[in-house]
């Protein structure tokens, strides 16, 4: 569906930026006011607001004015629109097995594996 695809594009666009992913990650642990979210990013407030707007347009977060502050909260269900959940988990296990295989290949054939420093 075109509408569905448009939503997916917005979601992936929103997630394609590391600052926005970091903001979303922090909101994954609970709602926060904009000022608290902005503080550790090192960006000016307008920049952070712009990032939050992109996340909100994608439906990944909701914001709500509470007195003089604006509260942001994550909308986890939006992520599940973008991913087939089990495919994501499978990709994680496949990648993990790739890394195990590569790591095993770095070990000397006849030696026991030794912890690195």
């Amino acid at each position: 569906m075109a509408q569905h695809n448009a939503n997916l594009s917005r979601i992936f666009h929103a997630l394609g930026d590391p600052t926005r992913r970091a903001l979303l990650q922090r909101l994954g642990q609970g709602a926060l006011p904009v000022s608290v979210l902005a503080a550790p990013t090192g960006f000016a407030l307008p920049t952070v607001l712009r990032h939050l707007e992109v996340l909100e347009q994608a439906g990944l977060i909701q914001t709500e004015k509470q007195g003089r502050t604006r509260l942001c909260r994550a909308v986890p269900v939006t992520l599940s629109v973008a991913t087939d959940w089990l495919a994501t988990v499978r990709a994680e296990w496949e990648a993990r097995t790739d890394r195990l295989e590569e790591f095993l290949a770095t070990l000397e054939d006849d030696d026991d594996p030794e912890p690195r420093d």
Partner: protein
Amino acid sequence: MILNPETDLELVRHLTAPPAKVWRCWTEPALLEQWFAPKPVVTRDVKIDLRPGGIFATTMDIPGMDSQTGAGCILEVVPERRLVWTDLLGPGYHPAADSFGMTAFILLEPEGTGTLYRAIALHRTPDQRKSHEDMGFHDGWGTAATQLDAVAAAL
């Protein structure tokens, strides 16, 4: 074992290393830390107590994000053959207050000079998972974000 295609997955692969080496990579913290998470994620503070009821815990530092710590409970240990753990329980079989809902099996068999490697992960039913997500699950969030990173970058 009966797998539910909606919630469970099985991964089968031949590895060239023998089961003894694969086992050590999965069960020795200093080795596990070197391959468990994708770079630049750092795995640290790995705790593995190889007995039923023992701890299986990792902490992952994801750049720009908060650290993710998960402590599960080992259920079965057959050296060089079978490692089973779950995050539904914590160490010592204490019920976990908030878990992603997973039981994982690492099964090793000799195959030629290498290993027939099977990883099986059982998960909650979709309904349970949905309600868990609606509550705002914590551990899966970082994982999903990390994976989506790769998906998004490829678009």
